[in-house]
């Protein structure tokens, strides 16, 4: 018998606007020592499914409408609160998505670590014993100087380190079932590889059953024995990993697999290498600090050119300074030293007023389409504002121009009076793109424009960007942490690390022959959405 056997689970949310069937008749089972991956886009109900097993959903509005979830023969859905508390953190543990918000900022990590040990009745650990056990485990998950770090607070740890703490916390009572809810989504690709390896090793040594929730098919390919594909609360497909990847049956699975950005750029670029549009020389952006110690060198002496008509990819991990570089070029971030010249004009020397005509020519698409649009402005106001400000349209012609923009980014004209919250993430990013191209710019900085989106939506947005670049002869600096996306879209790529550019080359040569060891490390850490290749890659990397 399987360790966990879920049958016909239904979880509905009773909201003011009606009933949302978050999980609708889903069945699954996991065996000890095996991994079940649940994949699906945001809102597909994969997290709700797992939280409902441990009664972690807010009730109301959530309500379990049907089904059984047998864990070791006991139904989790009908057990008493006391029994449930006995399961949580003891037999069944959870690793959550965001290590930045899932640890209590007011308590030391040591205190949080030992809690599952000392508050479970059957554990009967003393504080001193618990402390020793926790330090052992911190050591096992790869935290250097575990003894000393035991009394540190979460904010003194990096994201990857915090996720290690979360893993140690989940493993401390040696659970039989481990639920991982997108455990590496908030992390950089090299850290992701380490964390995944860690989970895999722990699973192996402790014979734990794992439910692994992810939207990243590459990650899933390397880990899963079984895969459950979910969409809009329903199970679309269940099967073992190879079958789902190589012989998918449901149309939705096929769509998901097709949307993964893979391989080289297919469209031919129209870069004109002889004409540099932008020339950046020894650019430095340093932040803050009364003393040299506090100064953060976000961008530290960077020189490169952006050629007319090209898409230049800029990759790097979080904190590498890539966003700051993009903003500094547009003078949206302060420039400490160095020059940015745009078609021969020195931008860093211009005053804010003198910069206005250049602002029209250079635009930016921001990462988060939820935060970067003014929630109190309709789409019309958002799109009309730059047109009117730069006097590209007058009151009479503006409506017509806005409609043209809507057509161009693929939004229905009827939506023009709506507010941002009425749109989905992908549609919002279309609005943001429309705003950026409204002034007919020549140069656009796109800062992770598709990173907050689901893979199928991401594919659409990338296609839209490629199409617009082609149609309007745009030049683009495309910033992303996702190397597959960058490879898919860029003509040339730069690799950034700690404020410096380590390497730049045409995309395919860079992929084929990375010169810098860091680039190699980055490329080797990318999970491939193909079980056999991905397992071979992991095996190669661990040697």
């Amino acid at each position, binding site marked *: 018998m399987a360790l966990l056997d879920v049958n016909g689970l239904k979880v509905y949310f009773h909201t003011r606007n009606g009933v949302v069937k978050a999980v609708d008749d889903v069945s699954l089972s996991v065996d000890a020592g095996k991994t079940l991956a649940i994949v699906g886009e945001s809102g597909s109900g994969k997290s709700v499914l797992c939280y409902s097993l*441990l009664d*972690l959903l807010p009730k109301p509005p959530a309500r379990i409408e049907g089904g059984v979830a047998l864990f070791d023969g006991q139904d989790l859905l009908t057990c008493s609160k006391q029994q449930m*508390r*006995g*399961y*949580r*953190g*003891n037999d069944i*543990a*959870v690793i*959550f998505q*965001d290590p930045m*918000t*899932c*640890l*209590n*900022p*007011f*308590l*030391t990590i040591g205190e949080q670590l030992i*809690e*599952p040990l000392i*508050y*479970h009745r059957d554990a009967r650990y003393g504080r001193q014993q618990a402390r020793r056990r926790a330090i052992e485990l911190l050591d096992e998950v790869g935290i250097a100087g575990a003894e000393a770090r035991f009394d540190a*607070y979460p*904010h*003194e740890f990096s994201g990857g380190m915090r996720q290690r703490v*979360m893993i140690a*916390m989940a493993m401390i009572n040696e659970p039989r079932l481990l639920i991982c809810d997108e455990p590496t989504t908030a992390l950089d690709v090299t850290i992701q590889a380490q964390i995944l390896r860690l989970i895999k090793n722990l699973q192996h040594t402790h014979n734990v059953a794992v439910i692994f929730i992810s939207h990243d098919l590459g990650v899933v390919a390397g880990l899963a024995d079984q895969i459950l594909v979910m969409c809009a609360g329903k199970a679309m497909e269940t099967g073992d990993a190879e079958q789902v990847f190589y012989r998918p049956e449901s149309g939705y699975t096929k769509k998901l697999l097709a949307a993964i950005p893979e391989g080289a750029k297919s469209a031919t670029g129209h870069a004109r290498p002889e004409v540099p549009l932008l020339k950046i020389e020894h650019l430095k952006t340093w*932040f*803050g600090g009364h003393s040299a110690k*506090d100064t*953060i060198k*976000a961008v530290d002496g960077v020189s490169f050119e952006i050629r007319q008509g090209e898409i230049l990819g800029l990759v790097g991990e979080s904190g590498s300074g890539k966003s*700051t570089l993009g903003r500094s070029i547009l003078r949206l*971030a302060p420039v400490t030293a160095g020059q940015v010249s745009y078609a021969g004009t020195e931008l860093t020397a211009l005053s804010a007023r003198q910069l206005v005509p250049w602002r029209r020519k250079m635009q930016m698409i921001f990462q988060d389409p939820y935060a970067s649009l003014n929630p109190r402005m309709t789409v019309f106001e958002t799109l009309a504002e730059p047109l009117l400000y730069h006097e590209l349209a007058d009151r009479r012609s503006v409506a017509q121009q806005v409609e043209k923009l809507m057509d161009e980014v693929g939004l229905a004209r009827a939506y023009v009076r709506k507010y941002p919250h009425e749109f989905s993430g992908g549609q919002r990013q279309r609005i943001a793109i429309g705003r950026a191209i409204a002034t007919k710019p020549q140069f656009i900085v796109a800062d992770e424009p598709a990173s907050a989106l689901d893979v199928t939506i991401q594919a659409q947005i990338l296609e839209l960007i490629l199409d617009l670049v082609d149609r309007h002869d745009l030049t683009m600096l495309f910033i992303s942490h996702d190397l597959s996306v960058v490879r898919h879209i860029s003509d040339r790529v730069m690799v950034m690390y700690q404020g410096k550019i380590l390497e730049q080359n045409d995309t395919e040569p860079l992929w084929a022959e990375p010169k810098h060891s860091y680039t190699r490390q980055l490329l080797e850490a990318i999970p491939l959405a193909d079980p056999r290749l991905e397992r071979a890659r992991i095996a190669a990397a661990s040697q």
Partner: protein
Amino acid sequence: MLRFAAGRLLQAIPVLLVVITATFLLVHSAPGGPFSAEKAVPAEVIKALEAQYQLDQPLWKQYVSYLGDIVNGNFGPSFKYPGRSVNELIAAGLPITAELGLYAMLIAVLIGISAGVFASLRPNTLQDYVPMSAAMLGICMPSFLLGPLLVLIFGIYLEWLPVSGWGDIPGDKILPSITLGAAYAAYIARLSRGQMLEVLSQDYIRTARAKGLPEPLIVVKHALRGGLIPVVAFLGPAFAGLLGGSFVVETIFQIPGLGRFYVQAAFNRDYTMILGMTIFFASLIILFNLLSDMLAIWLNPKLRHGSGAAKP
């Protein structure tokens, strides 16, 4: 932390100087004087009195000599209570007002926090609505209404508690303390409810639940600290409010505390008394704001370690 406190104390010096100067100018520019009374007093008597208290000197000279006195911790003699210094009068009233304030504060904090936390555990149910409606009532009800009302109910109808006085009959401290603390309890209840709701919806509370911790422990150990931060920050300003409010309560219950001295001094144009009390209260308010800020920092490990510097 020490550096922070020292810095804040240094900043207090110019603040106090402004308070002193403004108060000094205001009391001296108000019409009338300490010795003007309804009954006509012979001019030479007033002259002699003014000379005795150096009121015949130019204003700037009075100001400078007053500043000199303050540096030495001397608030000067009272004009209206001959033979007694302002220092003595403050020393006489302070223990009573301080005790009243302390009890009121304790009531405000204990009742306020427990009501707020209690309400936040089941939002939008009866358990939330009842204490929060009571809190709304508490905020709206001025102490000059609440005080007599309490006296009427508990002092006169039920005859459970004395109606006035301070420390004369057992139990006479209860009603004044409640009257003074009630509004702050209500405010703190609403503050802590709001913040607790915020904290209880945080991801790390879900983590705590997923670890299998018992619910009371989650509330007390994981949520309460974050929930208390705005309450702690409110304590400084609340203290200032308590000082101001003590006058009304002291009048209602016939308590010989500082608040009554203060208002009488203003009516009497008792220059040194007004100034002395203002400076004293201002210093206390600065001190208590500092203490509440230090407490808020101590509660937040990010700030405590001084590594909370904002990153871009």
